[in-house]
């Protein structure tokens, strides 16, 4: 609640679909291309050039729609959204209007007050526009982005705080990355977010006039931009002024929003079905096949980890952060049959090394089966936990099997009583004073003896056998 007002927030997220070519032409989609390298008559809007729809863009839209619980239209229609701006060379954007491919979905987010379901109004396919850079007297245009396939995912105005809006965007990105429909790269613009914000007096059911904040490229800025906008709108209303329906831009350096243009009404875009494209018809068996192949989503995996594998909420959340990590954990847990130990090793050792080496999970040398082998070596008492960490380090850098490392370096625990007895005798005779103190009642010294023995054996003595012999010698 803000000064007796409630904020109503909805997000429009533009996700770049991970295709090799553009939505209506074969131009490549790579980000690092040089100026206008990825263009063709279709993407620069030459008269007479005709669009041909990319089947992979359709597939990724259906995958994403299903992951968001949407119903998928077996018939959807491409429309022209008309407006004049030089980054849109045809004078219209090909988009979907009244018959979008996906609609009526939902996404569950975790808020401070527990889980919350955000309804998704629609998700439709459209083409991106070119990129303009403004230089005062002139504007320069690069059409490499023109025709990049986008899925615009529109939420219902179900969000109430800036933090919820940022959580929604983060969760949405996680789902997109899980189903591999979008790489979620905010810096490269693969994921862009427009926020619709309005405020109303607490208890009021009628929605206030909404303002759209455009092109925010970080989750933190989503929060800050909405935060600023809520306060600005309340100030306006309190001062007796009206909120104007408009599009505003967020300036992160000044942490404020400013007017970009007054918002067109939908009718100003004069939408109509694009005569260059027939309706997109897909079959229910196509949708069914895609549904069958969907990966388990992070929220569902989280539940399994907590309820069936006995992990904590926190651990489950960290391990499901990315699909790669969750897959790695599940394989390790399955092979070792020890989910908790697998979780500990991954969360402590593996994630630390990953961070230090700034590698990707797919690039590392230690495999889930090797990590499982290491866990087994500890559980079977072949090596101590301390030595296991060293073996992990060795395995991390060389990719050798933990078993081989232990054998080659003779790291296995010494359980041979006669061998250990000799070491223990040596330690006791060189610490005669301490032995006497122990016998006089200073039993705390037991730890000191164990430490000395471990040092002598480079940590390889079996703690169990050491304790047994030591207590016999000292107490017997």
């Amino acid at each position: 609640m803000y000064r007796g007002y409630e904020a109503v927030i909805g997000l429009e997220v533009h996700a770049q679909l991970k295709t090799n070519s553009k939505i209506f032409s074969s131009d490549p989609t790579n980000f690092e291309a040089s100026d206008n390298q990825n263009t063709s008559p279709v993407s620069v809007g030459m008269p007479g050039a005709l669009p041909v729809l990319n089947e992979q863009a359709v597939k990724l839209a259906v995958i994403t729609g299903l992951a968001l619980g949407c119903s998928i239209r077996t018939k959807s229609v491409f429309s022209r959204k008309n407006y004049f701006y030089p980054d849109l060379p045809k004078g219209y954007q090909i988009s979907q209007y009244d018959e979008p491919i996906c609609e009526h979905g939902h996404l569950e987010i975790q808020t401070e007050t527990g889980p919350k379901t955000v309804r998704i109004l629609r998700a439709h396919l459209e083409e991106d526009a070119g990129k303009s850079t403004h230089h005062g007297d002139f504007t320069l245009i690069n059409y490499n982005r023109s025709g990049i396939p986008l899925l615009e995912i529109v939420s219902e105005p179900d969000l109430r705080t800036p933090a919820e809006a940022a959580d929604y965007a983060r969760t949405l990105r996680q789902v997109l990355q899980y189903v591999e429909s979008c790489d979620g790269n905010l810096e490269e613009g693969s994921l862009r977010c427009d926020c619709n914000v309005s405020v109303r007096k607490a208890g009021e059911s009628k929605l206030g006039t909404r303002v759209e904040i455009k092109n925010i490229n970080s989750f933190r800025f989503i929060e800050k931009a909405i935060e600023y906008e809520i306060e600005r709108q309340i100030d306006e209303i309190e001062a007796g002024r009206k909120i104007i329906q408009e599009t505003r831009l967020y300036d992160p350096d000044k942490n404020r929003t400013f007017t970009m243009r007054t918002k067109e009404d939908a009718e100003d875009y004069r939408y109509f079905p694009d005569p260059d494209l027939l309706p997109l018809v897909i079959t229910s068996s196509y949708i069914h096949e895609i549904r069958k192949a969907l990966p388990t989503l992070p929220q569902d995996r989280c539940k399994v980890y907590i309820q069936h594998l006995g992990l904590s909420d926190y651990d489950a959340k960290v391990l499901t952060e990315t699909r790669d990590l969750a897959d790695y954990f599940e394989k390790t847990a399955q092979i070792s049959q020890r989910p908790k130990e697998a979780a500990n090793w991954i969360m402590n050792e593996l994630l630390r090394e990953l961070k230090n080496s700034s590698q990707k999970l797919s690039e590392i040398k230690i495999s889930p089966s090797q990590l499982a082998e290491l866990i087994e070596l500890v559980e079977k008492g072949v090596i101590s936990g301390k030595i296991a960490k060293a073996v992990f380090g060795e395995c991390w850098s060389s990719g050798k099997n933990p078993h081989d490392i232990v054998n080659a370096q003779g790291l296995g625990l010494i359980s041979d009583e006669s061998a250990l007895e000799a070491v223990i005798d040596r330690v006791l005779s060189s610490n005669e004073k301490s032995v006497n103190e122990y016998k006089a009642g200073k039993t705390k010294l037991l730890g000191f003896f164990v430490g000395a023995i471990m040092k002598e054996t480079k940590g390889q003595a079996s703690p169990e056998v050491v304790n047994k012999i030591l207590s016999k010698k000292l107490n017997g």
Partner: protein
Amino acid sequence: MSDSPSIDISTAEKMSRLANLKMSSEQLKEMSFTLTKVVQLFHSLSQVNTEGIEPLVTPVDIRLVLRSDLAKTNFSAEEMLSNAPEKTGNLFTVPPVV
């Protein structure tokens, strides 16, 4: 809908703005007159009862053909810019838009 729809001057002015066309008040007046005649002609369509009839997107019953997702560069940036009235390097130069 009213019985005889019309495009008044202010609507014509808005349409010219949306279409990015500069028009004199004479031209707007003429446009308002001509467009009113056009909408009135088409207005006869609204007399038809379309209750329960699906909107027509295309009159031919053929399927949309999709493309495989294969990237191919068929044109160089230089070729694509060869018709540009003004360019800077391989970028299109246009009048300022902000």
